[in-house]
């Protein structure tokens, strides 16, 4: 091992994060190289300097009080709205969020989440719209930018407990621009992003317990068009500001390509 190799590994060595073999090699080098040994001492000095308590900011008392109060408030909201038995599992985080909202007063997107109807789908629709809007607002459309589905698919495999089908629709005028991780209904889902001209199409997908496929359902919310279907054990929600015809074409192609086994 020469000095350059050692310099690259020295930081991890000092952190005790190097594997045994490399650790021993670095140690051996340090015994015979005063320059690298000095570098290691400098790393330890830096570590000591960074351990100074004044570098670690403590939460201000007012913030602490506010967070505690929000939690208490959340308990009240939850108790007040207690709807009964089992199927309201989803209400819990929402009720907590409502408590925070009361105390903290965060923005309008949460209003969308909280103003939900009774039916299960009414709720998911709102999540889908909120997810789509958020993805456009914060310039956070894609975490992995790629038009290659062979890049996008494995990227998801490392992050989710399922692997979404990513059809290639570029030849039909719907190129893939990437994917990202999103949260719907309190669970991580895959969001695939396709493009038609300047319009982004978000496809949210995640596994479902429900058996059988369901026919396509259409919605419009806040100027967005939504399509929902289930196919081969997966939920799909597509949303865009694209016109109805183009979105229907997109969904038709998407369904065709995902119904055959992927090549």
């Amino acid at each position: 091992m020469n000095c350059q190799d050692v310099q690259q590994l020295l930081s991890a060595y000092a952190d005790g994060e190097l594997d045994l073999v490399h650790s021993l090699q670095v140690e051996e080098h340090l015994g015979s190289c005063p320059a690298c040994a000095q570098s290691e001492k400098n790393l330890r000095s830096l570590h000591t300097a960074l351990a100074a308590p004044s570098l670690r900011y403590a939460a201000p008392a007012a913030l602490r009080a506010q967070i505690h109060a929000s939690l208490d408030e959340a308990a009240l909201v939850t108790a007040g709205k207690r709807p009964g038995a089992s199927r309201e599992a989803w209400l819990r985080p929402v009720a907590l969020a409502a408590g925070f909202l009361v105390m903290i007063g965060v923005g309008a997107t949460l209003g969308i989440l909280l103003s939900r109807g009774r039916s299960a789908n009414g709720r998911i629709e709102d999540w889908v719209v909120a997810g789509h809007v958020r993805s456009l607002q914060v310039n956070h459309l894609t975490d992995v930018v790629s038009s290659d589905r062979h890049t996008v698919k494995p990227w998801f495999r490392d992050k989710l407990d399922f692997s979404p089908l990513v059809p290639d629709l570029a030849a039909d005028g719907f190129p893939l621009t990437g994917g990202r991780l999103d949260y719907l209904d309190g669970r991580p889902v895959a969001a695939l992003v396709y493009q038609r001209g300047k319009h982004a199409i978000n496809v949210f997908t995640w596994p479902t317990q429900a058996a059988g496929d369901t026919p396509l359902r259409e919605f419009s919310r806040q100027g967005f068009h939504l399509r929902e279907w289930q196919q081969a054990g997966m939920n799909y929600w597509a949303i865009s500001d694209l016109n109805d015809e183009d979105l229907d074409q997109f969904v038709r192609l998407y369904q065709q390509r995902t119904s055959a086994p992927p090549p």
Partner: protein
Amino acid sequence: MESDERRRFADVTLPHLDAAYNLARWLTRDEHAAEDVVQEAYLRAARYFGSFRGGDGRPWLLGVVRHAAFDWLKRHRGPSAVSFDDDLHDRGDTSADPQQLVLRKSDEASVRDALAELPLPLREVIVLRELEGLSYQEIAVLVEIPIGTVMSRLSRGRRQLQQRLAGYVGEDAK
């Protein structure tokens, strides 16, 4: 049931409020922004509590804080504030620097300034490792980068800190 859940949420997240604020403060470098970010993060954490798989709540909560902080930065400083090209920044020299780094107690302010001036992606791994004591594995999951990148960013961050601090010490010695 609901109050059990609330208690569980409090147990998981409240012990790490200081860590949450510390990370938000170092990422935004603004005390008011840090408070907003932590509030937003607790709100999101409550909403996504279903995705918490148990275990140590700290890396999980810090991950939520980091996302909220990055959203804040993008909104207030523009998308370029959070973009970083590891390859581009990986051409630094890797030769040994035999000069001795001497730091005294009185240098704390210099250390704080030097850390605050580091580029965001280097600053965040230094804060997570040196100030919060997270493992490389935990940092990799939290920042969503490979462990090798954690290693190289930490290495570069420390080298840059040393260079900046060597500057301060040099000025002292004049």
